[in-house]
């Protein structure tokens, strides 16, 4: 049954079509069934009863971007560990030392980030 070939993936198409069909069906049915009453007040952005002021898409704290950049870096490092984890038993203690070096560099960077206060949310 397991052939290790691309055709192993073919059932995923069935699942994808099912999921897509379900989503499209739901969106269309709810559009058809629901009533439609237009009003200027209703279609304004919701702001707890007061007039909405300014553009909703305001600039956000740079901290969110930093989190995203750091996430990309850490994510790539974690992906590097997957082949190691799978071959872990055959690599033995040598592989252990290798990964310890890698993780040491990672944690050094992590320590630097924490020290610089990038992750301190309570401080402005």
């Amino acid at each position, binding site marked *: 049954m397991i052939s290790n070939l691309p055709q192993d993936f073919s059932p995923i198409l069935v699942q994808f079509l099912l999921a897509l069909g*379900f989503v*499209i069906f739901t969106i269309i049915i709810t559009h058809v069934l629901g009533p439609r009453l237009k009003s200027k007040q209703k279609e304004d952005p919701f702001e707890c009863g007061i007039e909405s002021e300014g553009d909703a898409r305001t600039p956000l704290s740079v901290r969110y971007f930093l989190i995203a950049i750091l996430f990309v870096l850490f994510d790539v490092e*974690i992906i590097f560990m997957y082949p190691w984890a799978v071959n872990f038993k055959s690599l033995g203690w040598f592989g252990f030392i290798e990964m310890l070096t890698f993780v040491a560099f*990672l944690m050094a960077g992590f320590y630097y980030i924490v020290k610089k206060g990038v992750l301190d949310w309570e401080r402005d």
Partner: protein
Amino acid sequence: MDSVFLIKSLIILGIFALSLGIAAYETYFERVIAAFIQDRVGPDRAGPFGLLQPLADAGKLFFKEDFIPTLADKWLFILGPSLAMLTALMTSAVIPFGDSILYDGHEILVQGIEVNIGILWVFGVVSLGVYGILIGGWASNNKYSLYGAIRAASQNISYELAMGLSIIAVLMMSGSLSLRTIVEEQHGMNWNVFYQPLGFIIFLTCSFAECNRTPFDLPESENELVAGYHTEYGSMKLGLFLFSEYVNMFISSAVIATLFFGGFNYPGMDWVYSALTSKMGEVTGHNLATLVGTLVFFGKIAFFIFVYMWVRWTLPRFRYDQLMDLGWKGLIPLAVVNMIITAAAELSNQPLLVNWIGLGVFIALLYAGSALMKSKKTSV
């Protein structure tokens, strides 16, 4: 080949229908459990014991106005909830729901696809879940939605890191990315949770955060952000957002049960298998044993879904800085420590013993360190 593919498609259809049905009834049980914990009656009007409540809820949402704000980006506004639902429904493909079915001389696995990259598929699709929320929140053109979306995205990506690291420790034990191999390694009662108590706790916490469940439901914390990223949503588009959360809860319970609690394995499974095959014949017995395994697996899933709800009605919500501190400064270093302990334990000949000793040493060091810090602070 054709009949095999047909049965495979039927299995996928079954899993698909089950995940939708279970997600629908999760909403009912959430209310029942909430009512029980808070000493209330709970839903009891629609049908016997209120069992038709999910249908009534869905019907209500379908007949609501399909509302799109004037300032919103129309297509992205529709795309947001669709993506959230689509990604939630795609994850179940690689999860082994049972052993295999013997049919017409073929052995068909009770699993969407059995591939070499199993757990990475889960990891990849989960990381795409951010898009639905981010796009939906931005398209609404509302400050609350935007803030909820950016919070949700930051939270999800932060907890993904610790999640990926805790999976690595499991992979080291099985030596394969395939979820089926991971399950087969845990035959009988040899479950990973006994080797990986710390990894299990990290993974459980991260899956709470990934599903945006309490205590990590910051994206929709109603006392500060109205309803977070779905403030402007109504009708079944809102329904898709809410529903995808419940589907995700089901899927992540299944992944937890697969990775740490042995999937469809249960103690005494060999005895059941031999008893069934000797009584009912090779083929029927095998299929029945598979069925028993699948039922056990669903029992485990139900338990974890219950844990989700139990926690929701027990713990208060975190503050945002606490949430980020826990994710980055707490869970990531812990996951790295867990990985190193597991590596050392697996290379020694006594993985179980060394794992627990390592964990004990780590906790002792942590305790001693904090005591030292405290005494320093008081002396200053």
